[in-house]
């Protein structure tokens, strides 16, 4: 009895489902589709941008760290060795300004090395000011725009000035230093240096600009 009663009900239920499906004609309006899709598109674009942001940041950071490490590998050598030289050098000897050469690749010296040099020079200069006044080094402003060649010369001159042994001096760098002294008006020291140079390198030609000093 129950089965017989349920069977027509089941048929009717299926008919209701079928009828319901025929009512499925409405669709969301086109503007709704457009708004939803536009929102999703914006969300995916944001997502893409978010993906690139950390990658580009990491790349920039990596580049920065690499460059810094490279600079630090080059730059610390000089100040460190200068401190050692300064520490080892006796006061008397310092007064006589013995010079011990440290090999420097001045052509590749970056700006950071320049900073270190200026700093080290400033400290050394402060300590030695009363004992043996040195000719002032050209100011940083004076170096602005003179090009890498001039900077290179200055570095050599500074290296000599900060205590490099005479016997180890590079002739060209030594002459550049003498030229710097002359340019700065410290003719006396320049003459002394030129004499020392001539004694160390008697065969080395003297540049025309320095020849008047040797005559004196």
């Amino acid at each position: 009895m129950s089965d017989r009663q349920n069977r027509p009900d089941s048929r009717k239920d299926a008919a209701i489902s079928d009828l319901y499906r025929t009512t499925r004609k409405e669709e969301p309006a086109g503007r709704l589709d457009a708004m939803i899709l536009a929102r999703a598109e914006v969300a995916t674009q944001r997502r893409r941008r978010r993906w690139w942001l950390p990658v580009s940041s990491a790349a920039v950071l990596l580049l920065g760290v690499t460059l810094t490490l490279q600079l630090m590998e080059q730059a610390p050598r000089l100040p460190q060795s200068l401190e050692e030289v300064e520490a080892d050098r006796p006061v008397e000897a310092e007064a006589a300004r013995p010079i011990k050469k440290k090999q420097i690749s001045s052509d590749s010296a970056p700006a950071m090395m320049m900073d270190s040099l200026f700093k080290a020079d400033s400290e050394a200069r402060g300590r030695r000011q009363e004992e043996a006044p040195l000719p002032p080094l050209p100011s940083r402003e004076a170096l602005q725009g003179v090009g890498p060649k001039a900077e290179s010369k200055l570095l050599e001159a500074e290296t000599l000035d900060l205590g490099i042994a005479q016997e180890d001096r590079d002739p060209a760098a030594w002459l550049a230093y003498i030229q710097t002294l002359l340019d700065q008006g410290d003719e006396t020291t320049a003459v002394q240096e030129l004499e020392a140079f001539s004694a160390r390198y008697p065969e080395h030609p003297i540049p025309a600009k320095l020849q008047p000093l040797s005559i004196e």
Partner: protein
Amino acid sequence: MARCRAVQLIGLYGQMGELTDEELFRRFAGGDFEAFQDLYARYRKSLYLYLLRSSSSATEADDLYQEAWARVIQSKGRFTGGSFKAWVFRIARNLQIDSFRRQRITLIPEPDEPGHQPDPGPTPDDISHYDDCRERLKLGLQSLSQEQREAFLLKEESGLTLEQIAGMLGVGRETLKSRIRYALKRLRQLLEDCV
């Protein structure tokens, strides 16, 4: 213009037809817009009809439909798995419930109470009997209790299994079947001359 663009975008449906909903959604979460288009095309109509049939007006259905998809888009990082279909219909259902609460509408008339019979409205003489049945069915759905209506609509529109629907509604499978049975009984009464 907007409609043309939407139709054009929806026309892309089928390019990734073999992928599951979950895979499409995973791709969308990874920034693939086309995956979303495909997914949207799959659920566009069924989700809209579910909301339309269970809402008090087409305007409300439009709002809820838009909000449901907005939540899907916003929640793309929070979908942890399971059935996308069940998830998206659950979002729609929750919005529907919130909407009811906001409007403080009681849509649970006693089935046998004559005072709560929906107004079938004027039926033009020139519409066919079949069209009349369809209109009466739509109105009949509105006359169901909220629980019966959502059970019937989820069964018809979502394509979910009874177990999935029961899980979504937080009831047992037998309870769900009972609600569907009552809904159909009521509709049979209303559409006696149609089915």
